[in-house]
């Protein structure tokens, strides 16, 4: 019965091309763990959805090249990660997207992310935003929405044990 229910849930969440199937979970914008901006000023500062997509891709590319945190990302479904990061950023920046990923706590469960990993990722995000020429003050307003996620992203220290997300 349980298997049937899970299979039904999985069928409802069709696997996008190039991605591995994910275990079913309840989708909700509440999973974004951030209150979106209102108005369009931030979206414009990020050059709309095209700019957000470039920044998210730039962030993932940099993380995959960054020896400090490469190990964490090498184990992830990068196609899925790119899609969900774009949604996540777009949702927070009031770009008219829904976030369909897991909550920050669930998405990073047992990954063993440490503060130094978070610092490295923020530096890479700053670099991606600079490459997109997002004004520095707008970058910081965005980072202020992301920073509190640290409490959910960092959990028990299990750095030597980093299973993949799926």
């Amino acid at each position, binding site marked *: 019965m349980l298997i049937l229910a899970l299979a039904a849930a999985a069928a409802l969440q069709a696997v996008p091309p190039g991605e591995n199937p994910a275990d079913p979970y309840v989708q909700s914008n509440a999973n974004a763990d951030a209150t979106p901006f209102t108005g369009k000023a931030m979206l414009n500062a990020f050059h709309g959805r095209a700019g957000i997509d470039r920044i998210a891709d730039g962030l993932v590319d940099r993380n995959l090249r960054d020896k400090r945190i490469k190990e964490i990302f090498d184990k992830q479904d990068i196609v899925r990660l790119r899609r969900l990061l774009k949604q996540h950023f777009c949702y927070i920046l009031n770009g008219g997207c829904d976030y369909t990923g897991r909550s920050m706590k669930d998405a990073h469960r047992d990954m063993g992310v*440490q503060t*130094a990993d978070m*610092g490295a990722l923020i530096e890479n995000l700053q670099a991606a935003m600079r490459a997109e020429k997002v004004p*520095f003050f707008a970058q*910081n307003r965005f980072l202020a*929405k992301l920073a509190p996620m640290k409490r959910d992203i960092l959990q028990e220290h299990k750095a030597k044990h980093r299973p993949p997300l799926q």
Partner: protein
Amino acid sequence: MIRCFCLTLALFISVLPQSAEAEEWRDGGKLLLTGGVTSIEGAAGGGLATWAVIAGDETEAGIGGTVHATYIALPDFDLTSYGGAIGFRNRIELSYAHQSFDTRSVGAMLGLGHGFTFAQDVFGAKLRLIGDAVYDQDRVMPQISIGVQHKRANQGAIIAAVGGKQSSGTDVYVSATKVVLSRSLVVNATLRFTKANQLGLLGFGGDKAIKYQPEFEGSAGVLLTRRLLVGAEYRTKPDNLGFAEEDDTYDLFAAWSVARHVALTAAWVDLGNIATVKRQRGAFLSIQGSF
């Protein structure tokens, strides 16, 4: 006061074994400038003010540290400071600074001799109690630390001659620092209980007052880039000595993270009256290396 210092140290040590669980030890991990720069007393902070941030580039999974050299050029004096600090798990900071205050030609005028120099050693310890100045952007709660600075001045005879009561003393402080990322601001407020005359270089307590007094250190800055913080600081000080009025001090500063491990601070400082000589305003230059 020594007992207070020991109690505080005991408190620090009791906090040490908090993370017994095995985790990966990491080098660095703090974002640029979020460890502050080095204050003139050797603790992580701004230029004149001590902040709640812990020295070094480390996170809770590592050890970091700083070394610094600071030079303040004033019309009639100059003050130099050098030293270092160790940050342990972004929780505890131990610092040392050696300050020397060259009286140049004023020394001769005061009958001390040309180039007479007052010096002191400052031994500091700081404990981060609560809050995260950088990551807690959804909370009003700042990062709060408490600390002690034990200071030993070298010119006991002169200090006694000008009315100073002791040549060593211990400051205690509580400090709150917050980065307000949504406004690109960094703000700090520190409440320091001290008897120090001119930071301690002219001893502790005096003919006018001998008790601990609450003094305030405030800093506010704006991040213009991730490498550049510009702002202002204000610091009040006791006025214990009858022979020379002591003033509050302020500065306008720019702290620039030149590279990941190097920060330069330049400031315009107004140290007010010092040892009867008025209007000591000048340049503050500091270099800090960190890991």
